[in-house]
């Protein structure tokens, strides 16, 4: 790297991009791993049902499984597309 590269540091570096992508994908995979085995299939099934009525993409459906002391919680978050006015 020569001295003329010194001035062009405006874009995020590829290492930074790599880190952000990894954090997202690993967070998702850990949720699947720690939850019950049916979780990935459940997510796919829910997607399919909702898609019959509304056009959504995979990242609009968030299925989370949380282990509690007395009971476990399955949290389902679906962001619907913006309303047309």
């Amino acid at each position, binding site marked *: *790297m*020569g*001295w003329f590269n010194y001035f062009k540091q405006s874009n995020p*570096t*590829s*290492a930074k991009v790599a880190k952000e*992508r*990894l954090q997202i994908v690993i967070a998702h*995979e850990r949720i699947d791993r720690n939850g019950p085995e049916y979780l990935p299939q459940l997510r796919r099934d829910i997607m399919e049902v909702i898609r019959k009525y509304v056009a959504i993409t995979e990242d609009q459906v968030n299925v989370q499984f949380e282990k509690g002391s007395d009971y476990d919680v399955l949290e389902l978050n679906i962001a619907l597309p913006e309303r047309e006015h």
Partner: protein
Amino acid sequence: MSRIVVVTSGKGGVGKTTTSAAFATGLAMRGYKTAVIDFDVGLRNLDLIMGCERRVVYDFVNVINNEASLSQALIRDKHVENLHVLPASQTRDKDALTPEGVGRVMDELHELGFDFVVCDSPAGIERGAHMAMYYADDAIVVTNPEVSSVRDSDRILGLLQSKTYRAKQGESVREHLLITRYSPARVAAGEMLGMEDILEILAVPLIGVIPESQSVLQASNSGAPVILDKVSDAGQAYDDFVRRFLGETVPHRFLEVEKKGFFKKLFG
């Protein structure tokens, strides 16, 4: 009991066998009676890296199938005392490994007085990899500063926490992160994930950072584990890692870019 250590990663080509060879050699150099086992049934390679490929008579699967005794199959290392290699079978498939068979070999190694058993895991998450980690007390998770390797390491950590004998007993395998093929210059340039980034993502205690080094290829070319190359950066970094594993406090080295001269900085 002998302390059983698996060297694993998920992804292939990150340096598991190089690490297993260096680690086992380092332990033996310090006087510990050590066995290193190749779990990559069908794709044996530890023998080449250890330089004992021409002395293989019996293998791990022969021992499991009672076709040879353990002492017949163990190859005495020619570089250091106290070190023995148990090669993988080149002809069978990985289904030859069973928890019972592997467990019996581990018990026998203990009876023979081995202090450490190093299990060189195959890549992937299939049977060979499961068997390599199954009886582990410790796991060395080998990771390259690269997205697919880090992701696979996280996957392997999940398996260590759920599919091992210790996990099934409600205990845990001690996890250690070893970053290999690290290039401080590329990290400084923002082209490579830094050590801190990987630690933040995987959240496993760091046991060593091995720099990208020409000496690793030279070592495998000649069949002498790189830790024997005491002048090389990688050899020294592996030696530091072994010392840390044995409980010493050793500062990390080779993490900074080598200082360049003025002209190199300007035109380099």
